[in-house]
Structure formats: structure tokens, C-alpha cells
């Protein structure tokens, strides 16, 4: 059986992390499922556990000048309810999982779990979110795109803990989040899609698109986006097919028990096409 550490403070948590190899557990909505045992037996964790959900120091949402700061321990439901939360993130949270899971699952957990089907991730990518990571003697701030390496893998070191996420507080002329799941709630995404755009004087001044659950990582292609920025909206609309084609090679879904690769790819491109056509 594993040991459980329940630190009183964030500092104590970092101290414990510096000395032990621990599995960090906040809401547990992913870890308890991943490590579940047969009925009636305790879950099968491999490493000792560090419980952090009760650390109120990581439970805050605050607005600074151009950014919103969300502590790693804030539950998904609390973020959904907050006045400061970006509308696009609210959109994603409102159809995520179920009320029960949203009340216990945390934003830090959803990021650290690094599932390509994680529902907040496409939005956090599209909003250029940064992750603040601390250890006992260091602190670093990393764009989410660099933080997550691949499915289930992040650059988080064994002695580090996510402390907060920073989301630039921008408004967009166009913003979309769509989740394609097998049912309306409590579903794992077959495809997720988030996109924003700004248009001024018929020129596309900002354009970002992300796809989730269609490969080992969230798909966001900065190079394609940069080629689009500066186009007129007419040019954008007329090049729709070409742009969709350019995304094709980056959308690399698989066949699994939830859907087919063909469906995931086709629907991803349908959503992109629909989105591009909506920009006028």
C-alpha cells in the first residue's frame, strides 16, 4: 500500500516533492479512474501520493492588467462560475464532463493529465495560455504548447508543481469552441475544436485554430496561422479549401472504441471550413 502525504501549506508540498517521488493528486477524477482496482479494493497507485486539493493558496482567480490568473487548484465549476473567466473557456467548461466531475476536477489537473481529449486544452492553446511551475528553489513560466510534450507527458519535473495558469484577457471578433462527443454530457471528445480571429478593415489581424483528440497532441500550427494573418477576409474565404488542405497532414487521428479516424479527420476539416466561412 502507498503512503499519503497531506501537506498543510504549498511550501510544505514543495518540500515533500523535493524529498520524495510522489504522484500529485488534486480532484482525482483522472487518477482514480486510471488506477482503479476491482470492486471493494483500494486503488492501485504505484507511487506515494501528495494530496493538494485542500491547499487554498492555489485556489484563486484574479484579474491583473491584461491577464487572468487562475490557481492550479481551482475547480472547473468555480472557473465556469467566475466573472473573470474568458468566454471561450466558459464555453468549453459548460459542456465538460458532468456537474459532479466539474465540482472536484481542477484546471491544474486537466493540464497535467495532458490528454489530447482534455476539454480545456484546445481553448488554453488558442488563448496562448502560460503555465507557472514552481519547485522549492525555482519558478518558470512556460507556454502551454511547450509544457505538454505528448499524450500524458509534460515537462513537469518530479520536484515541481503547477502553481497557476495565466490567460491573456483578449476579446476576439470571432471565437468558437466545439466539442464532438458521443453524447451531450459525460462524454470523452471524439474531436474538439477551438478557434479565434480578429478582423480590422477587412484584414485578418489574428487567426488561431486548435484541434483536440485527433492526434497525440493538441494540433496548433503557428506557421499556417501566420500565413493567414494579413489576408483580406475575401482572400481567406476564397482560399478556404487550400487552408483546410494545409491542415490535413497535421490531423492524424486513430480508430478506437469511440470513433473512426476517417470520421475524426473529416469532421475536423468540416468544422474548420465552417469556421473560415463564418469570418466576413
Amino acid at each position, binding site marked *: 500500500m502507498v503512503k499519503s502525504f497531506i501537506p498543510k501549506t504549498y511550501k510544505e508540498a514543495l518540500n515533500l516533492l523535493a524529498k520524495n517521488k510522489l504522484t500529485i493528486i488534486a480532484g482525482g477524477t483522472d487518477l482514480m479512474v486510471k488506477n482503479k482496482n*476491482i*470492486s*471493494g*479494493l483500494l486503488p492501485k497507485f504505484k507511487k506515494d501520493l501528495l494530496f493538494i486539493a485542500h491547499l487554498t493558496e492555489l485556489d484563486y482567480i484574479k484579474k491583473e492588467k491584461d491577464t487572468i490568473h487562475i490557481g492550479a487548484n481551482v475547480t472547473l465549476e468555480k472557473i465556469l462560475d467566475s466573472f473573470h473567466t474568458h468566454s471561450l473557456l466558459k464555453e468549453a467548461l459548460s459542456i465538460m464532463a*458532468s456537474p459532479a466531475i466539474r465540482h472536484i476536477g481542477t484546471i491544474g489537473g486537466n493540464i497535467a493529465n495532458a490528454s489530447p481529449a482534455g476539454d480545456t486544452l484546445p481553448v488554453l492553446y488558442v488563448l496562448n495560455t502560460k503555465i507557472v511551475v514552481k519547485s522549492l528553489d525555482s519558478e518558470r513560466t512556460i507556454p502551454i504548447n511547450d509544457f505538454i510534450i505528448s499524450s500524458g507527458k509534460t515537462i513537469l519535473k518530479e520536484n515541481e508543481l503547477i502553481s497557476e495558469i495565466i490567460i491573456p484577457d483578449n476579446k476576439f471578433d470571432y471565437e468558437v469552441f*466545439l466539442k*464532438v462527443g*458521443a*453524447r*451531450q*454530457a*459525460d*462524454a*470523452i471528445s471524439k*474531436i474538439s475544436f477551438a478557434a479565434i480571429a480578429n478582423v480590422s478593415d477587412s484584414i485578418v489581424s489574428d487567426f488561431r485554430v486548435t484541434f483536440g483528440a485527433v492526434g497525440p497532441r493538441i494540433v496548433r500550427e503557428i506557421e499556417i496561422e501566420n500565413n493567414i494573418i494579413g489576408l483580406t477576409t475575401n482572400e481567406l474565404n476564397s482560399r478556404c479549401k487550400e487552408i483546410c488542405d494545409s491542415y490535413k497532414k497535421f490531423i492524424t487521428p486513430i480508430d478506437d*472504441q*469511440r*470513433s*473512426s479516424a*476517417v*470520421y475524426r479527420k*473529416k*469532421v475536423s476539416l*468540416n*468544422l474548420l471550413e*465552417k469556421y473560415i466561412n463564418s469570418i466576413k
Partner: protein
Amino acid sequence: MSNISKAIKKVDSEEKMSGKAKYINDISYDDMLFAMTLRASESKGEIVNIEYPKIPKGYTIVDHNDIQGKNFVKIIFEDMPIFAEKEIKYYGEPILLVVGENRAIIQDIINNIHVTYKVKTPTYKLRDSVIHYEFEKGNAKEIFNKAKKKIQFDYSTGYQEHVYIEPQGLIGLYEVDKISIIGSMQCPYYIKNAVMQALDCDEKGVRVKQTTTGGAFGGKEEFPSLIACQIAIAVNKIKKPIKLIYNREEDMEFTTKRHPSNINLVAAIGENNEIQAIKAYVALDSGAYIGLSGVVLQRAMIASSGVYTVDNIEVTGDVFETNTVPNGAFRGFGAPQMMFAIEMFIHHIANELKIDPLVLRNKYLAKQNDITSTGGKFRDIIIMDEMINKVMNMSDYKRKLSEYSKEGNFNGIGMSWFLHGCGFTGSGEQKHIKALVKLRKEKNNHVTILVASVDMGQGIQTTMKKIVADILQLPIENIIYNNPDTDLVPDSGPTVASRTIMIVGGLVAQAAKLLKEQWVEGKEITVEKRYKQPKHIKWDEEKLRGDAYPAYSWGVNVVEVKVNPATYQVQLTGVYEVYDVGKAIDERIVLGQAEGGILQGISYGSLEVMKNVNGRIQQKNITDYIIPTSCDSVNIKTVFMDNPYLLGPYGAKGAGELTLIGGAPAVALAIENAINRRVTKIPVTPEYIMELIDYGKN
């Protein structure tokens, strides 16, 4: 007499809402042990050798060597062993139990048992027929020989998993000269008979008691007999209480499901576009053992003309054995597969002939005294015309159909018409079940209902009590109906086939009337009633000819959807249902059946994907196997139209299964209408809709 349909508080709601109800996993005994199953890791082969690790003291292996009686689970045929001896026929087939105190140690022992197999080539295709039936009405063969025009389509349906909230589970108890089985079940006497055969003992040697059951849907009809036999053998060997509870994944992977089917329908069309004859062929996948598959096939075949009267019908069917997990009973029992196919087919015929489906359907809609597919008779009044009018008005069907049929409109509306034969097929009640019920008036003037029917959530404890209380004019609190215990109640038959209210409830009502006549204050009196088949009902079991069912319940469903043209997702936008169940004994309870049933049918038709790849079930949990949430439903509009059945209590007929049957064809027709493409298989998933939009025909 008060109106029996007026809803009362469900007698078990408080116990269940408060969490006080004890389900099998809530029950334990001081020296109780646990059992877990070692399963085959090949789909087909022979066991060559089993290598065991050192088994710690207090832990026991229980396998086929411990069986005193026959190594078969008594269902219909002697085909499924309790424990595999040598031959393995599906991945996951039980080989032995490991029994002991600590489940982690049991698991460890199981992980360290190494079984060597001589592997054989498994069959997953429908190739090896193990049961074949055929029957004919009129001169179908002759007409098909001469027919100038034929319309033919193939339909297919997938698995459906029960997803009862409470997984399978039983406890076995050792008493002197007796083994007791308690747990989650539909049919205490099925289990009793199976365990008697396994232990080679007489009826005194086995006692079976139902515990509060968290849903069943047919999944606890015959399956619990298998684990009851295993547990009984283990208890007989170890002489201590033993609990066997399945985990959700084990339950989804290795217990029975609805039979996947392929159905081929052909219509011979005459010069005036009339349907001269229909030829139906049904193929069911039984999995590795036949179990109830033959009876399921019969029900499917009998339903092959749906609610329509066609004078000439030729029906054939096969049960095919494959090296996959055995399939079994599931609410509807073969009818949902066939009713999907025939409802689609009648529309597809109309489309081919370019006539309004409604006109064609009305032309063939069965009327009282029409001859059924098996040459029996629809003896009772059929009120489908009123029901259809009702549902069309409620849903604004005609206006919506014309609006939604316009090009580029991705809304759709579909209407299914269906029936369900109530009770056992053919002479099952008379020949095999011979139901007996008793009522015992206690000295304190309370009355105990003694039947083997179980409440599995469908509300039978409430409705049975209501019947007795109403007839005897007693308060409902004075009626006692405990979970059945085979040492205390007679065999009133299994809780299946929508028979419980109509047959068992009918006998209970007769017994209550008898008791009323014999009533003496302060004296204990027991009365009993045994089932007698109505004289006018005749059935030839060999030829499948005659009256297949004593009565029929009828239904009309309308489902409305919106299909997303970018993601091909289907959103329900309206559900309307009208039923003739004779008379509702309690409106709210039947409403529960109606809303749950149609939703289970709609999701069978559009959401629930379960696939078997090389003998392995791919969707093993409720994350991957999709059943609807409340967010996927709409406010369902339900109407019951009274049409009392002379031989049912207060006129009641079957209700439980009927409500599932129309959901799949109604949603499939709605999707067909939305995307203007022909749908021939269920579930109609977004992935299938994408294919249809890209490559399908209208």
C-alpha cells in the same frame, strides 16, 4: 371501485431514495469468503495444461472436478458448461473460481495461474447454424415463384448491453443439508432448478432468495444461473458463505447481450403496387452457446410482418454459433431487431413504389380478426387508428414531415408502429411454466402475496399490492410482498416476457377474489390459483403455427431529430409515444416503463455501439459504451389509451418490453428523413451518417 390507474407512492421509493435498501454487495457474513473467476484467454481451443502457483492456506480452487451433478447450466439445451473442462469456445469463458478471504491475494493467485491451450481457429462469421426454423402463411412460395416484381433489402442490428445499475452478483450460504443462493436476479426458480442439477440434489437441497435488485432488463434472466451454479459448487466444497460480485468491466465484457442480427426482407409486388407476399430471413448471432437464442429467434420470426397483415408470408431463421460471448435475454427478446427491419422495409417499399408510406402502411395495418403471421388470430379490439391519430396530432406529424422533407433541411421526423406479444411464446405458460400463486391471509388480517416474481425496479411490488388491496378493500400497508424466497413462495414463473402483471397479476387477482369469498376475521387462510391456458388458444410448437401469444400490446412512437451537417451528430428534438397496454395498473409506474423504454430503444437505434473484434468486446465501460444522459433526452410526451383485455387483471396487458421496441425504427426513420438517405442498420451513429451522406442512396 376506485380507478386502479391512479398513481400511488411506489412502495419501495423511500427505502431506495434513503439508501437503506440492501443490495447484494451491501450484505456480508462473518466468515464470508470472496470468489473471482479465471477466464479463458483464447477464443477457441483446448486446455492442455493448467499450472498453479503455490496456493496459500485458506484459498481454494473450484473447478469442474468439484461438480457432483451435470456440468451444464440448465437453461434449455445442455450446451453451456458451468466450468470449462477442456474445450474453450469463447474468450472469457469461465474455467475456475479462486476462493478466499482477501481479494488482492485472490487476484494475485489468478494472475499467476498459467493455462496452456491448443489453439484452434475461431469463427466470428455467421456460418455455423445450430437452430433453424421456418414457417409459411398462405402461399408465399408459390407467389414468389411467379412474382414479376420484387423489392429486397438487407438490414442489420448490433449488440445492446443491458447496463443495469447493479452488476451481477450473488452470495452462496451453507446450511446443513442445504445451499442457499441470495442475490440480484429475475428468476429465482430458474436458479433453483439449475443449482439442483449442478449439485445433483432434490428440491430441499437448494433455496434461492432475491435481494433488492438494481435493474435487470433481461440480463438477469438466465445469466445468474451460471454464477449461481459456480457459487453453489464452491459453497458445497468449502462450506462457508461465498460472495461473487462482478466488476462493471467484467460484467460488460463477459455477460449476455442482445443478439446482433442480419435480416433480409423481400416483397413480391403485384400489378397494382400491392404487397402480395413477404419473405423474411433472420440470422441471429448466439455467441458460443445457444442458451435462449432459439426462443429469441422464434419471437423475431413471429414479428416479421410487424403490425401489418400480409396474406402470404414465408419466414426462415437461423441461430448461428460464433466464438464470442454468449448472447441472451434482453427486453424485447428478438422483437426489437425485427420491428426495426420491418418498419424500415415498409417505408423503403413505399419509396421504391413512389407512394406515400402512410397510405401503404394504413392499407396493411392489422384489424381485429385478422390472421397473424403464424395463422393465429388478433381476437381483441385493435385501436391503432385512434392511437396513430393521437400521436400525429400531438406531434404535428404531417406538417413537420412536409417541412422537414425539403432539400437542405436537416430536421427529421419518424413514426414507428409496433406490437408486442404478451407473455411466453406459444404454449410456454401451459406446458413449461404452469404458474402457481398463493395468497395467505394472516391472523391479523394482513395479506401476504406469495409469488416468485421479483421487483427489479419496474414496480411490481407496488402494482401487485395495489391489485390485492383494491380487491380486498384493505389499506396498501396491510399487504405484504417480500422479495421472493423459494422456500416460502410457489413457482409463479420467471419475471420475464412482459408476463408478470398480465399472467401472475391475473392469478393474484383471481386468488384475491377467492380469498374475499372465504374471508374469516382473525383466521389464517391460504388460497392458491394455477394458470390455465384459455381454451381458444392453440399453438403447435413444432410447426410454429397457431396463436403465438394470448394477447398483444400496441404502440406508436414519433421521434424528431436534428442532424448537424458538419459533425453528423443527432440531437433529439421531440419524442411522442402512445400505447395500448390494456389498462395501466399504476399510471406513474407505466410512465416510468414508457419513458425509460423508449429512451433505451432510441439509444439502441442511434447511440449504443458495442463491437466484437476477434472475439473481444471493445466497449467495456460506460465511458466507451454510450447510453443517454438526461441532457440527451427531451421532455417525452406519453399517452396511454385504455383497451382492457378480458383476461388481464383490470384489463392489463404487458407493458415492460413494448415500450422499447418502437424507439429504434422511429429514430432511424427520423434520421432517414433528415438526411434523405436510406438507413438499413442500427445504431445510426454519426460515423454511419457521414458514410450515408457521402455515399448513400435515398
